[in-house]
């Protein structure tokens, strides 16, 4: 089966209806960039897959691939479709048409049934078909040498792996996922069972500890009822009331203990207050107070007397002072005409002086008498202050003793009140009785506590029995869960082994298939001669579970990181051509190449032309798009073959409307035969 024609309108750069009638031999499409060469091959891709598979990026802010599939240039296209006609070896024809409105005119399955046999990859046949039929500039590197080793193996699997039957690895992977999920769930159940058993064991340990303290329960009940006569059976069972009673008794015992201590102190204080020493001391203080009060009284009276003499003394003192001043003046003035200036009495100077001196002596005596009176008063005043202080001291001393008695009375009253509150009746403070009550309270509390412990021990027994049964049950459950876990883990292990086995078998088969293809790959590599030094390539199809495909040249050198871009492309081309030629499931004997010679020098372009010529001899139709007109000439010359069918060259360009168009199409006739023989004969 071959491509018979490609017709397109309103598709990509072709606005007008354009038809490429492809001869059974080969077609060379050439033209400048943007002239529509690649679009012709894109049309085949689009007709079969509904997209153009060379774009790695399909969306963009200003419109993605889908917005640029159809004509977006000036004016409107009359229609929007691509049609690819195929002709079978028996001359039957069928056309695959995909329109902008309406999509594919046949079902995908119908198209597949015409182009492929039953071994085609059912779900992805169209993509695999195009990827292995159409070798594009964009994919030569991306799908060959520059692929990661595992992706390269996957590309081989896509191309030839369908010969191996359905991919069971997906099924075993699903089985493994389910088994692992089951195992994970079972692990959770085991953990839960372990947790519950652990909790039960802890409870059992506590219950057993209580049980060890089990005593005579009847005696305990008797003790409780003796101490707490109103206790009910329910209260005994629950133990709550008992625990409250014990707590209350302990609180009261503590309070009573404090009161007994205080009573002990008060008794001591009472004994002290009523002691003879205290009474003597108090009487002494009273007497002392009375004495000092009397002394104060007498001192006050003496002071009052002294105070009345003080005014007379002050008068005499003032008189003496004035007299002294007058005498000084008189003496200073002296006799006036034989007369005393003070009393006008006739005096002689001697009499005058004697009189002055005598007067001064009198004045001095007056002054001394006044001073004596003052000193006496001061002395008495001091005596009053001392007596007052002594009275205060005595009062204070007496107050201390009386205060002690008073505090004692208050404390005794408060103690009685608090004792009554605690139920300790009695009009007098009986210390021994209080102490006995306290001891009795503590004794009863201890007995209650003991009785409660005994009762609690008896409930622990039931609890131990319950928990032991529960523990046995949980152990059995855990055992079962562990058994199930072991089973699910065995299932996981088996599923893993199955998954691995399926992948290994798939890879083994793929490796065998690839080994079948390998000589062709090596031959194509030798023909394309990517590298002058390394004329042979080797491969390593490794990985038991995850297949990988590595290329090596020379002594284990990796061409991926050694070859130049052009050399890698040439090597990649060998790989893609080998894959294309090895497809067993494809009925279409057409190879499409879109500008396969970029970055390749003239010598290797020539090698490629020779390889394509050799491929032609496998009865394949070749449709190749190249930009270089000289290379188009070369291909037209080199692909010509009378025996292998005609060729045609299409020179593409742009029309006045801006649409890509066929500027010229001409058949490439077969070359003359037996030139050398004719030349020899003519020579």
């Amino acid at each position: 089966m071959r491509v018979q024609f490609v017709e397109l309108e309103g598709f990509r750069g072709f606005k007008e209806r354009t038809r490429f009638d492809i001869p059974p031999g080969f077609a060379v499409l050439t033209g400048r960039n943007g002239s529509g060469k690649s679009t012709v091959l894109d049309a085949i891709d689009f007709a079969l897959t509904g997209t153009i598979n060379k774009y790695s990026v399909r969306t963009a802010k200003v419109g993605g691939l889908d917005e640029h599939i159809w004509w977006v240039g000036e004016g409107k296209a009359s229609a929007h479709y691509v049609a690819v006609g195929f002709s079978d070896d028996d001359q039957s024809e069928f056309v695959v048409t995909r329109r902008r409105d309406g999509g594919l005119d046949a079902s995908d399955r119908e198209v597949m049934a015409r182009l492929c046999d039953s071994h085609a990859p059912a779900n992805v046949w169209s993509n695999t078909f195009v990827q292995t039929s159409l070798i594009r500039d964009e994919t030569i590197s991306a799908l060959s040498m520059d692929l990661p080793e595992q992706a390269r193996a996957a590309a081989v699997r896509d191309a030839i792996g369908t010969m191996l039957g359905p991919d069971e690895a997906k099924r075993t992977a699903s089985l493994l996922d389910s088994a692992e999920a089951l195992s994970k769930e079972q692990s959770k159940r085991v953990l839960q069972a372990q947790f519950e058993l652990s909790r039960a064991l802890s409870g059992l340990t506590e219950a057993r500890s209580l049980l060890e303290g089990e005593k005579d329960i009847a005696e305990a009940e008797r003790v409780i009822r003796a101490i707490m006569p109103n206790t009910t059976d329910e209260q005994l069972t629950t133990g709550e009331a008992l625990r409250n009673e014990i707590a209350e008794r302990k609180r009261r015992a503590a309070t009573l203990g404090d009161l007994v201590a205080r009573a002990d102190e008060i008794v001591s204080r009472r004994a002290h207050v009523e002691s003879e020493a205290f009474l003597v001391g108090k009487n002494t203080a009273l007497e002392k107070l009375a004495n000092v009060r009397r002394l104060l009284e007498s001192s006050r009276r003496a002071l009052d007397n002294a105070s009345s003499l003080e005014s007379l003394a002050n008068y005499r003192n003032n008189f003496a002072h004035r007299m002294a001043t007058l005498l000084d003046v008189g003496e200073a003035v002296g006799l006036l005409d034989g007369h005393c200036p003070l009393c006008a009495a006739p005096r002689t100077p001697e009499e005058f002086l004697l009189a002055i001196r005598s007067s001064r002596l009198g004045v001095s005596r007056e002054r001394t008498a006044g001073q004596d009176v003052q000193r006496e008063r001061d002395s008495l005043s001091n005596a009053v202050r001392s007596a007052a202080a002594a009275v205060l001291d005595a009062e204070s001393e007496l107050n201390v003793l009386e205060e002690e008695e008073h505090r004692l009375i208050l404390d005794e009253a408060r103690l009685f009140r608090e004792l009554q509150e605690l139920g300790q009746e009695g009009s007098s403070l009986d210390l021994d009785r209080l102490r006995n009550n306290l001891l009795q309270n503590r004794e009863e509390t201890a007995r209650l506590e003991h009785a409660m412990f005994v009762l609690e021990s008896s409930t622990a027994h039931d609890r131990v029995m319950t928990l032991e049964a529960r523990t046995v049950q949980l152990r059995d459950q855990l055992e079962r869960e562990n058994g199930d876990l072991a089973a699910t883990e065995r299932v996981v292990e088996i599923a893993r082994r199955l998954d691995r086995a399926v992948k290994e078998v798939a890879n083994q088969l793929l490796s065998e298939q690839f080994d079948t293809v390998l000589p062709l790959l090596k031959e194509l590599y030798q023909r394309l001669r990517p590298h002058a030094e390394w004329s042979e390539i080797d491969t390593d199809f490794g990985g038991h579970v995850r297949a990988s495909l590595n290329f090596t040249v020379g002594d284990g050198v990796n061409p991926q990181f050694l070859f130049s871009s052009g050399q890698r492309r040439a090597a990649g081309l060998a790989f893609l051509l080998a894959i294309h030629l090895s497809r067993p499931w494809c009925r279409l004997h057409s190879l499409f190449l879109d500008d396969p010679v970029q970055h390749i020098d003239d010598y290797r372009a020539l090698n490629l032309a020779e390889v394509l010529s050799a491929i032609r001899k496998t009865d394949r139709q070749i449709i190749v798009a190249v930009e270089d007109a000289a290379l188009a000439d070369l291909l037209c010359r080199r692909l010509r073959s009378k025996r292998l069918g005609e060729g045609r060259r299409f020179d593409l360009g742009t029309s006045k409307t801006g649409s890509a168009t066929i500027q010229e199409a001409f058949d490439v006739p077969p070359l003359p035969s037996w030139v050398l023989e004719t030349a020899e004969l003519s020579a």
Partner: protein
Amino acid sequence: MIDLLSVIQSSLQNADYRTRLVSSERSPVVCFEDDSLLGFGCIFADPQELLAKWREMETALLARYAAGFRRAGDKAWNVYMVFACGTKGDAMETRQIRWIEEDLERTRKIAAIDLATREDVIRALLPLLPLQYRPMLRPEDAAERLKSRIQNIAPAITQVLLDPAVSTDEVLKTLRGSL
């Protein structure tokens, strides 16, 4: 040691070329032609002679068949010269001989030395020959191999694991039940 000229001739004949030997001043030359190309195979005693004489040989042959080339039209662009010798050369000679091939003037040159076996000759003539290998991939019965593996790992599910009609949950159940 093979008869290089006859091996070249027979290899080309096997590739559907018409061939015949013609005489030359040095040694016989094998002429070959099919419906797309024509050429000449020349044998040299050693790499040194090949390096020294190939251009002279090419010129002589082109001159000798010039009239035929003129009548051949475009086919005259598809003229091949095969320069071969059976002995080894040193590294420099090997490289120089490779450069001959990269000389794209006038004719397409195939230059090869150290051609000791028929395989060597085939490898050298590859640009002229059809594809040597045509992989014939046959459908493999993977199911049988898989069943054999599954039988060894989990006999209970040998039949159901590969049966798409049985869900994986059912397979899992069967597997668990078998343990």
